[in-house]
């Protein structure tokens, strides 16, 4: 059993940085063996997770830092996203009812649809929050 670390990146919690992160995730997913369609979906989910950290955990504070780690665990891609914001209310993290049309409330739905497993929690000692996502790719 081998877990391969693909990368771990820290970047400022700014919308302008997301494009770069998408490229990084897309290329790395394709190198790990994903087809273009699958890597596009994975990119969408990871992007939404980063957006949520920027908008909700850091509430737009651009001094915030996001850590994203990507691993390949024998055909399962693991993503670990960490922020150092105040501990969030985990019970508030849920999509809107899709039938109740309004702008917003889709990000968590996209993540849940695309990823096979998701786990969100607080870091020790109130240091921040994490989101772990797993996607089987082969």
């Amino acid at each position: 059993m081998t877990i391969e670390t693909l990368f771990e990146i820290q970047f400022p919690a700014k919308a302008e940085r997301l494009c770069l992160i998408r490229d990084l995730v897309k290329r790395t997913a394709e190198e790990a063996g994903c087809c273009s369609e699958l890597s596009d979906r994975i990119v969408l989910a990871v992007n939404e997770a980063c957006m949520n950290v920027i908008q909700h955990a850091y509430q737009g504070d651009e001094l915030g830092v996001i850590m994203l780690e990507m691993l390949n665990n024998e055909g399962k891609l693991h993503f670990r996203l960490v922020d150092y914001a105040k501990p969030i209310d985990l019970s508030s993290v849920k999509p809107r009812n899709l039938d109740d049309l309004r702008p917003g409330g889709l990000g968590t739905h996209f993540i849940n649809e695309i990823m096979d497993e998701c786990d969100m929690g607080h870091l020790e000692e109130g240091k921040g929050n994490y989101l772990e996502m797993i996607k089987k790719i082969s």
Partner: protein
Amino acid sequence: MNISTEDKEKYTIIELEGEVDLSCSPDARNSILGVLEGDKSLLVDLAKVSYIDSSGVASLVEGYQTAKKQSLKFGLVGVSDAAMSVLKLARLDQVFPIFDSYEEYEKKDD
């Protein structure tokens, strides 16, 4: 992302091009709401959209709802594969009026 706007007799076209993400979806939103404030029906052309995230989709939903309230027409035209797969994931492909071309819209609008 690039936004270009074109005024037709009966409606306005907003063409979005490139990646519609959190860094620029507020601009898309402003353009969309701007046209609707001017009391014009609106077609948003998504043919050249290579990526759209939930914030871009939210701008479209807001446009759709605002148009409805004002009894204006709102539609999407030439939706790219990249944009369509996101709309489908949000189950909005059944909600938005979607047209292959301006001709198709004009025919149905008659």
